[in-house]
């Protein structure tokens, strides 16, 4: 990617964050925004500090993580149409969250922890299915296993939702569609600290991912230890996506569309693609979250609805162009 494009990407990310802080149910003045950083005691500044900042920063990190995971997974399974949720996480996380909601598991951490546990459970089952003959991780089985295990968890989830009361049903549906309404400094801090390891592992695997796109055999000829690499990438992607679902619900299309677009925008090699996708995914999700809370304010749309509404046309356009 050219330095100019990096600059464009950087400015776009910064602008998304600033707009995300300024606009919303209540629009903030520039003075209020500056005050929130310098420590002014105005109501506006306090609002930015306690609500907007954690929300916008969390949306950025989650969007970046999803896009990074998507880019890595697309190389791992050698399928440019792979979405991190395809490995079955959404079903498992959703099941965990819905059970927590139905059982009224207490505290602000009840639902995210249950969702995370659900995601980890699915990862474990899919991983067991995909390790063929006790030694080889088969990416095709990974995808298929993810789809079937995810579908199984999804039907259990539907059963739980059907059997629960109306108010629980509404909050479960809202959770499933994703959002950052519950973002707080503690949830931001926990996610950020947790994400360091998988994000670092994926970034360090950039060269290996380049090689994997050539096919496993060719990757080995060029010096990749593919079994170690595949496991590292899969587990990092799964752990990162699982945590993203836990703090923000199921937000589709970021992990599918953003890497796809960045690859075509001049970053086909992963050493550039991974950081570029992280920035673009972060900016995209901050913008989508901004739309979700300002389009029908004071009502909020689930952010997953907005990402799908934007993501699907972009994806369709890319698909059409790639066929031309």
């Amino acid at each position: 990617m050219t330095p100019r494009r990096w600059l464009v990407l950087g400015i776009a990310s910064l602008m998304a964050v600033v707009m995300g802080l300024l606009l919303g149910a209540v629009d903030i003045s520039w003075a209020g925004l500056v005050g929130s950083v310098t420590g002014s005691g105005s109501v506006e500044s306090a609002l930015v500090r306690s609500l907007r900042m954690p929300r916008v920063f969390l949306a950025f990190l989650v969007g970046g993580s999803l896009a990074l995971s998507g880019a890595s997974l697309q190389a791992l399974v050698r399928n440019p149409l792979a979405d991190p949720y395809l490995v079955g996480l959404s079903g498992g996380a959703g099941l965990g969250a819905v059970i927590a909601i139905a059982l009224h598991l207490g505290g602000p951490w009840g639902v995210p922890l249950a969702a995370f546990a659900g995601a980890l459970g699915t990862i474990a089952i899919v991983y067991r299915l995909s390790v063929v003959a006790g030694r080889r991780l088969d990416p095709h089985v990974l995808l298929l296993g993810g789809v079937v295990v995810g579908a199984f968890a999804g039907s259990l989830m539907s059963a739980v939702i059907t059997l629960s009361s109306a108010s629980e049903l509404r909050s479960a549906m809202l959770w499933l569609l994703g959002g950052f309404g519950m973002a707080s400094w503690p949830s931001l801090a926990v996610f950020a600290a947790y994400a360091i390891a998988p994000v670092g592992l994926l970034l360090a695997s950039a060269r290996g991912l380049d090689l994997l796109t050539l096919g496993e055999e060719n990757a080995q000829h060029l010096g990749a230890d593919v079994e170690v690499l595949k496991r590292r990438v899969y587990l990092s992607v799964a752990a990162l996506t699982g945590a993203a679902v836990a703090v923000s619900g199921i937000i589709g299309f970021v992990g599918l569309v953003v890497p796809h677009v960045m690859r075509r925008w001049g970053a086909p090699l992963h050493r550039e693609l991974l950081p570029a996708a992280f920035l673009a995914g972060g900016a995209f999700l901050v913008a989508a979250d901004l739309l979700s809370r300002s389009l029908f304010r004071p009502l909020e749309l689930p952010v997953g609805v907005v990402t799908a509404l934007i993501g699907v046309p972009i994806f369709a356009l890319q698909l059409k162009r790639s066929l031309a």
Partner: protein
Amino acid sequence: MILQGKDLTVRYAGAEAPALDRVSMDVRPGRLLAVVGPNGSGKSTLMKALLGLVPVEHGTVVLRERPLAAWRRAEIATVLGVVSQREEILYPLRVEDTVLMARYARLGPLAAPRAEDHAAVRSALERCDAWALRDRRTDTLSGGEWQRVRVARALAQEPEALLLDEPTVALDVRHEMEVFELVRALTDGGLGSVVITHHLNLAARYADALLMLDRGRAVADGPPGEVLDAGLLSSVFGWPVAVTAWRDGSPQLVPLRPGETGV
């Protein structure tokens, strides 16, 4: 001796007969060895065994005086350059970028490519007459160009030996000849090379030695004139053939039609 396989036996899970049965071969600098034999005779399995990509039931592989098992994958890639039979382009790249991947085994996970890496890429592309293609996207190349780029990528590994698995499949006469000429020239430049091929006639003209496999066993091993025997070929391939000689003395095989007899 760069690479040596001794008494290699490989058996795939569930199969009764071994895919490779006590086959020995070695790769020496400046020698082009062609591995020939019918479909399913174990040619690709032999290559995989030499590269440590299938479990070997019996026998040893030694790379530069050290057992292959003691080598890390990235280290092997600095000694052996491999052009596999297939490579599907799912994510198109610039030609120069795909050849630069040959240097990954010598680079840290985050280090930027050094001047010497770019130099190796350029020299490899030039030797394969592909430097002019460097800015093209891999999915716009013709079959022959793509194959040259893949050989260049293996060369950019700066290996001591080159292993090619059916490098001329689906290429027309000119591109086929270009690949064999290239491999011959590289071998004359000091590389050890192994080519798996179905082209017995080209193997006879370009290779220094032939290894013929049949149902996992080595049935002949030596200079082309010794290995390409009409009786042996007819029995191994299950079709009657005659063997004549080209001007340069290399044996050339002519498959016979029913009712025809040999020369």
